[in-house]
């Protein structure tokens, strides 16, 4: 599975063919979560808590059930007991048990013959709440008298005196901090703050569930991982995995937010109770209130530096709130905070605290943006204080092959230095700035994962090939998978059709997350192709009556090799396929793996920003992304990941935030006031792909999807700070905050 050592000339890899699902997506034919119907289908709707924190004394659904057209009402008692704390948390987040833990927490659900009737029925469900004191901010949640959400979720093994809402403790690093700081010429310590953001996928969660009286069920839903959906739903409904078949619809964005379930088990429970298919779709308001935003954070960062720019010691104290349940994202934030640097003394520690907010979900490199932002912002401040170039300082301290990372392991070949050098040499970095303009620099890091993956591949009689994989295509992966299959088999890309199969059709696949698909599915596709090739060579060896090892595969043909070379006319894949039934039956290849060796990824971003000194309005003038892709299979979609991640990070830095009132209620549950960037907010985003091959993949692929959201927070913050000549230390940098700092 390691990088093919022979230097190979790719024919298809690195080109930009059209994506196979493209025509469906430009003509409106592609079917997303809410686009499916079933005969006799009911509409499901969820009743949500109007309170931030309340004990549910009783739920009386009798009036709702009496309404004509209402077929079922479900509450927490309609679900099985989930196994393990994580699954219990996910289930409780889908449907409140004894307490509503946040504004918008699901309390009950109804299925009716129309959406109008379902909405009327929600109003008829009487919930008796005992309103409890609430807490939504980190500072308040750790106070001794703070309302405690779930006493049983306090961090296990936490030291005496740890506040009851603290669920996770984190601590990474090495070396002697005290000695390190003693070597510094300048030590700066600052505090930073970020707010919760949302993935902001344009497609709200939607599904269609159908369970028959025999207990077998089908579920259609938009998800990043339908196997994970199956496993969670089956657990919550007390079903075996084989009883539930999940089909992933086309997915309208996820960015991590569709790796967990919200409405899917509820739709199944309603369908079970009503005996009919049930369709559910969240409204946008529900998406904001009750899906999974990111943690908000507080950070205290202390870094020591020599006059020459060498970091002598670095210490981060991070505090995340991840909503009403435990969250391990603090670990990822702490691990990523200093990962870009080769440090002798480094420590990143922190905790997660529960608040009356929705349970956080992954968002593109979860934890990394808010772990890295304060570090990169403080490094910029040190550079200014010491009169040093911010790229030079990063190059001086950059992690490289053999560096003991800040989170423990030693790096293999990585591309950070090459990426920094590319940024330094780029014309963007060498273009002069005008008045009220600033240029920000930031590095970013993400681990990338592999994970369980299954791919199978059937060679059709006419020489075309059907590739079956199990990862929802969220950004063009059918194209990259098809390209890798075509490359390996030596047949035209157009002769491949790649489909994303349901959970019954192919082995388990981890979700489309962790930047894993091009890496893992690609790896499995290449290996499945090699499996099919091996079978084809064996068939041809029988035809030629020579040893299978004497048949080689080249350019889509079986050719005699070695001493037999030239003795037989090569046979094309199509020729072999046409006679498959005569030579032993259908030909297929498959590969199942838990892929490791994903290869970490680094990015460097440059942002030029102009600030209106009288209003604090910021304009992003120019933006360039430099990232190591290992090997870009379809460069246009690699660029797309880099540009899209940058845009999301810019939104995070500038205007996006969850705003809770003192009443604990979410105030901006809509796209109007949760301000994601619109087309006119952004400049062209230049994407510069570097290719430092990942030794763990046959073609050298590294995941690219997540890293690009990590650097923008600090790149934008550093640019704004340089433009106004004062330091910004809180996100989002909405104009009122910038103007306040300007007026100082």
């Amino acid at each position, binding site marked *: 599975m390691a990088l093919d050592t022979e230097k190979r000339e790719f024919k298809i890899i690195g080109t*930009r063919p059209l994506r196979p699902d493209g025509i469906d*997506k430009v003509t409106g034919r592609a*079917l*997303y979560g809410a686009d499916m119907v079933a005969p006799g289908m009911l509409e499901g709707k969820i009743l949500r808590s109007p309170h931030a924190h309340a004990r549910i004394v009783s739920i009386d659904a009798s009036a709702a059930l009496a309404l004509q057209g209402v077929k079922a009402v479900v509450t927490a008692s309609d679900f099985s007991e989930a196994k393990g704390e994580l699954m219990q948390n996910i289930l409780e987040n889908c449907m409140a048990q004894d307490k509503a833990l946040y504004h918008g927490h699901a309390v009950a659900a109804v299925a009716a013959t129309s959406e109008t009737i379902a909405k009327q029925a929600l109003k008829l469900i009487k919930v008796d709440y005992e309103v409890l004191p609430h807490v939504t901010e980190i500072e308040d949640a750790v106070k001794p008298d703070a309302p405690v959400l779930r006493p049983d979720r306090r961090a296990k093994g936490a030291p005496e005196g740890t506040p009851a809402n603290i669920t996770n403790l984190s601590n990474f690093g090495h070396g002697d901090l005290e000695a390190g700081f003693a070597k510094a010429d300048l030590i700066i310590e600052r505090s930073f703050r970020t707010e919760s953001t949302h993935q902001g996928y344009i497609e709200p969660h939607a599904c269609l569930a159908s369970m028959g009286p025999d207990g077998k069920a089908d579920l259609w839903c938009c998800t990043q991982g339908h196997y994970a959906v199956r496993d969670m739903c089956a657990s919550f409904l007390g079903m075996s995995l084989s009883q539930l078949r999940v089909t992933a619809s086309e997915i*309208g964005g996820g960015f991590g937010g569709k790796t967990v379930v919200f409405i899917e088990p509820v739709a199944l429970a309603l369908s079970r109770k009503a005996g009919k298919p049930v369709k559910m779709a969240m409204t946008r308001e529900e998406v904001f209130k009750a899906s999974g935003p990111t943690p908000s954070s507080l950070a205290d960062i202390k870094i020591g530096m020599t006059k020459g720019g060498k970091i002598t010691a670095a210490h981060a104290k991070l505090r995340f709130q991840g909503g009403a349940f435990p969250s391990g994202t603090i670990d990822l934030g702490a691990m990523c905070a200093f990962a870009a640097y080769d440090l002798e003394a480094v420590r990143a520690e922190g905790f997660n605290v529960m608040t009356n907010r929705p349970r956080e979900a992954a968002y593109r490199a979860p934890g990394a943006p808010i772990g890295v932002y304060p570090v990169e912002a403080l490094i910029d401040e040190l550079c200014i204080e010491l009169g040093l170039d911010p790229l030079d300082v990063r190059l001086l301290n950059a992690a490289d092959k053999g560096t003991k990372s800040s989170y423990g392991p030693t790096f293999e070949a990585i591309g950070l230095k090459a990426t920094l050098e590319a940024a330094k040499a780029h014309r963007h970095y060498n273009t002069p700035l005008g008045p009220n303009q600033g240029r920000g620099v930031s590095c970013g890091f993400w681990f990338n994962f592999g994970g369980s993956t299954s791919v199978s591949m059937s060679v059709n009689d006419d020489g075309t090939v059907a590739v079956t994989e199990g990862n929802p295509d969220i950004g063009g992966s059918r194209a990259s998978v098809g390209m890798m299959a075509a490359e390996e088999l030596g047949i035209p890309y157009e002769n491949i059709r790649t489909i994303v199969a349901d959970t019954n059709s192919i082995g388990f696949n981890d979700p489309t997350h962790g930047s894993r698909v091009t890496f893992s599915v690609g790896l499995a596709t290449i290996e499945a192709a090699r499996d099919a090739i091996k079978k084809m060579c064996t068939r041809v060896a029988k035809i030629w009556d020579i040893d299978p090892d004497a048949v080689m595969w080249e350019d889509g043909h079986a050719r005699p090799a070695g001493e037999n070379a030239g003795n037989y006319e090569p046979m094309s894949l199509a020729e072999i396929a046409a006679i498959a039934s005569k030579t032993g039956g259908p030909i297929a290849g498959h590969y199942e793996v838990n892929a490791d060796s994903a290869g970490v990824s680094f990015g460097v971003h440059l942002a030029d920003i102009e600030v209106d000194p009288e209003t604090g309005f910021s304009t992003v003038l120019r933006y360039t992304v430099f990232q190591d892709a290992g090997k870009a299979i379809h460069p*246009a979609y690699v660029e*797309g990941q880099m*540009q899209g991640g940058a845009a999301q990070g810019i939104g995070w830095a500038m205007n996006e935030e969850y705003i809770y009132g003192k009443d604990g209620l979410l105030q901006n549950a809509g796209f109007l006031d949760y301000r994601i960037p619109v*087309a006119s907010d952004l400049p062209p985003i230049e994407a510069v792909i570097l290719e430092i091959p990942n030794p763990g993949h046959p073609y050298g692929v590294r995941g690219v999807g997540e890293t690009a959201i990590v650097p923008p927070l600090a790149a934008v913050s550093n640019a704004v700070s340089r433009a106004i000549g004062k330091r910004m230390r809180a996100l989002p940098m909405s104009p009122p905050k910038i103007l306040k700092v300007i007026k100082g």
Partner: protein
Amino acid sequence: MNKIHVTTTVNGDPVEYLCEPQETLLDVLRNQLRLTGAKEGCGTGDCGACSVTLNGRLVCSCLVLAAEAGGQEVATVEGIADGDNLHILQKKILEHAALQCGVCTPGILVAAKALLEKHPDPTEVEARYWLAGNLCRCTGYDKIITAVMDAAAEMRGA
């Protein structure tokens, strides 16, 4: 129920439907006419995923009542291609890889088509402002704008 009988034209074809007074054009397009190309991303006119034209005028179909469409000409993403022949905009969106998840793409196409019909030679900034009501969370808009500008150039040349 007090349903309203509506006679209208969708993508050039005569269409009749019965709708409830509060139902939106988006509801009827998707649920009755099974034209699911227009998506409900927000239901409040903030995302543009449900964009259609009404007598040539770009609107959010979530902010039009189905009852209002009577006697009008509705055009949706399903009507942009001419049979098997993709519109230049559709081709350019594909060529430039200007979609990732694709859920905003129908709205972008309807809006961009309306733009180029009104302004065949837009500047990049004009294109960005015209499309500001079409949220895309995947692409950062870069490739979308490139595709629209490229399509505009080709349409002017054609």
